[in-house]
C-alpha cells in the first residue's frame, strides 16, 4: 500500500512538472499594467501547489507504518486488467472497423468469454445493442458514429432513414 502511495505521489509530481512546463508558455507572472496574473499563472502555480502536496504525501509515507494490505486485490486484478485492455482495444479499433463492429466484438468478448454467459443472452444483447445505438444516436439525434471500413454498408440504411 505504501509503495503504491509513493508511486502515485511521484507520478503526480511528474504530472505537475509537465503541466508547469507547458503552462509557462504563457506569462506566469504578475501583469504590471493590466493588473492580475498572466494567462499561464493559474495552471502554473496550481500545479506547483499540487507538486508540493504530492511531495508532502511522499515524505509523510516514510513515517507511516506499512499496513500489509495489498494495493490490488490479487484475486480480481487480472479481471480488471483484462477489461481495461479490452476497452482500450475497442476504442483503438473504432477508427478502422467502425463503432458498430468494435462494440459488437467487445460485447461478444465481454459476455461470452469474460462473463461466461450463454449464447441466448450474448446473442440477444449483441444484436439489440447496435440496433438501439443506431436508432438512438443516428436516426433520432443525427449524431453519426464512426464507421471506418464499414461505411459503404451503411449507405442503404442512410437512404432509408435520412
Amino acid at each position, binding site marked *: 500500500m505504501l509503495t503504491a502511495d509513493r508511486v502515485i505521489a511521484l507520478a503526480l509530481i511528474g504530472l505537475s512538472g509537465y*503541466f508547469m512546463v*507547458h503552462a509557462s508558455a*504563457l506569462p506566469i507572472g504578475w501583469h504590471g499594467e493590466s493588473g492580475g496574473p498572466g*494567462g499561464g499563472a493559474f495552471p502554473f502555480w496550481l500545479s506547483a501547489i499540487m507538486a508540493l502536496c504530492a511531495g508532502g504525501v511522499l515524505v509523510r509515507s516514510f513515517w507511516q507504518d506499512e499496513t500489509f494490505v495489498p494495493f490490488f486485490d490479487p484475486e*480480481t486484478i487480472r479481471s480488471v486488467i483484462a477489461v481495461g485492455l479490452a476497452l482500450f482495444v475497442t*476504442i483503438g479499433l473504432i477508427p478502422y472497423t467502425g463503432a458498430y463492429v468494435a462494440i459488437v466484438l467487445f460485447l461478444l468478448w*465481454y459476455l461470452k468469454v469474460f*462473463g461466461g*454467459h450463454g449464447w441466448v443472452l450474448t446473442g440477444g444483447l449483441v444484436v439489440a*445493442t447496435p440496433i438501439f445505438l443506431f436508432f438512438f444516436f443516428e436516426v433520432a439525434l443525427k449524431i453519426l458514429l464512426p464507421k471506418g471500413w464499414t461505411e459503404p454498408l451503411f449507405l442503404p440504411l442512410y437512404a432509408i432513414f435520412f
Partner: protein
Amino acid sequence: MEILSLLADGFATSLSPFNLMIVLIGVTAGLFIGAMPGLGSVNGVAIVLPLTFIVPPSSAIILLAAIYYGAMYGGAVSSVLLGIPGASTAVATTFDGRPMAQQGRAGLALIAAAVASFVGGTISVVLFTLFAVPLADLALAFGPAEEFALVLLAFTTFVGLGGDDILKTIIMICLGLVLSTVGLDLISGQPRLIFGDLPGFYAGISFLVLAIGVYGVGEVLHTIETSKSAPSVTPAKLTFRELGAGLREMNRLWKTMSFGSFLGFFVGMLPAAGATPASLMAYGLAKTTSKKPETFGKGNIEGVAAPETANNAASTGSLLPMLTLGIPGSPTTALLLGGMVMWGLMPGPMLFIEQPDFVWGLISSLYTANFAAVAINLALIPLFVWALRMPFTVLCALVLVLCIVGGFAPSQKLHDVWLIAGFGVAGYLLRKADYPLAPLVLALVLGPLMESSFRQTLIAEQGNVLAFFERPLSATFMGLAILFFLLPLLKRMRGRAKKNGVAAAE
C-alpha cells in the same frame, strides 16, 4: 404569495404531458440505477447526460433531476435486499435495513425506506422553495470578487469538513482546476496547456469526459475488483395489508423523519458534505435520541427511516446552491450544472430573472418526481428483485458501451473517448489510493468561473489583491474560507493540547 404564483406557473410547465412522461421515465431509470450496487445518482447522471440531447434543455434537466431523485430512492432497495448499499448514500440504510430483511421483514423495510424518502423529499422541496428566492436575491449583489470568494469557500469546505486526507484533497482540487484551464486562455484567448499542439485539447477538457471517465469507466473497474461472487437476493413480498401496517408504523416516526429532513437539507447544501454524511448523521441522531438505542442495528425501522429521509433531503439541499448561486452542492449537481451550461443556461441568480419558466418548472417537477418516485418504487418492488439478479458482467458491459458512445456523442471526437478511458483508469487508481474524486469533478466544473472571477476582479481593481477583503460579502466568504482551511490544523492543535493535558494530569 409571489412564490405560490411562481410555483403555479412552474406546475403548468412540469405537468405538461410531455414533461410528466419525462419525470416518469427519469424516476424509473433512476430507481433502477440507484438500486444497482455500485451505481448511484452521480454515475447515472454522468452516463445518461449525453443521451439527453434528444429532448429540449428544460425537459433534459427535469429528466436528470428525476434520475437523481429516483436514484436516491433506489439506493435503499439493494441496501435492504442485498445488504450492499446501492449507492454510497444508502450505506446507513443497510445498518437496520439488512437485519430487517433477514428477519423476513424486507417488505416493511422497503416501505419504510420509500415513505421516509418521500417525507424527506417533500419537506426539503418545501424548504427549497422557501429559500430559493431570498438566496437568489442575495446572490444578485454578487460581483466577480464575491463569486471568487464563494468558489474558494466551496473548495475549502472539502479541506475543513470533507474528512478525507487533507493533502490528497488539495491535490485533487488543484488537479481539477489545472485541467479546467486546458484550452484557450479565458482573457487573452491564447492556447494554453495543449500538450504539444494536440488539436483535441483546443476545446478544453469537458466536465462530461472527466465524469464519464471517473464515474462510468472507473466505477466499473472498481466494481469488477470488489465483487467476487454474485450476492444473494432476499425475496420481498409486498401486500396491501403490509403497506397499511407499514404506513401506520411510519406514522409514529414523525419526529425522526422531520429531524432527518432538516438535517439532510442543510448538510446537503455544503459541497463537501452531502447525502452520505447527512444520512450517517441522521442515523446517529435517531439512535442517540431513541428510547431503545440498543435495538438499532438489529432491525429497528427507525434506523431505516432516519437515513432515508436525510439522504433524499440532502439531494434537494444540494440543488439549492447550484441553482441560486451557481455553486453545486454535490458531484451530481456539479454534473447538472455542467449540463445546463452545455445547453446554454447559466445557473445563478440571473436564471431566476431571465428564465423563470425554466427554474420554476424544475422546482415544481421535484414535487411531481417525489410523488412519482414513491408510487413507482412501491409498485415495482417485484421488478427490482428480478433486476437485482442481473449479473454484474451484463451490467458492466452495457455501462462501458454507453460510456464509449455517450462520450463520443457530444463532441464527436474520438479524442474525448480516449480521454475517458484514461480518466477511468486514473480515477480507479486514485480512488484506491484514497484520493477523493468529488473535489476533482467539482474543481473542473467550477475552474473557469474561479479563474475568470479572480482575474476580472484584479483587472478591475488594478491588481489590488486586497479587493477580495474590501467588499463586505466577499470578505465574509473569504473569512469563512480561511476558517475552513485552518479547521483541520485547529482540530489537531486541540487534540494535542488535550493529550498534553491528560499526560500532565497523570
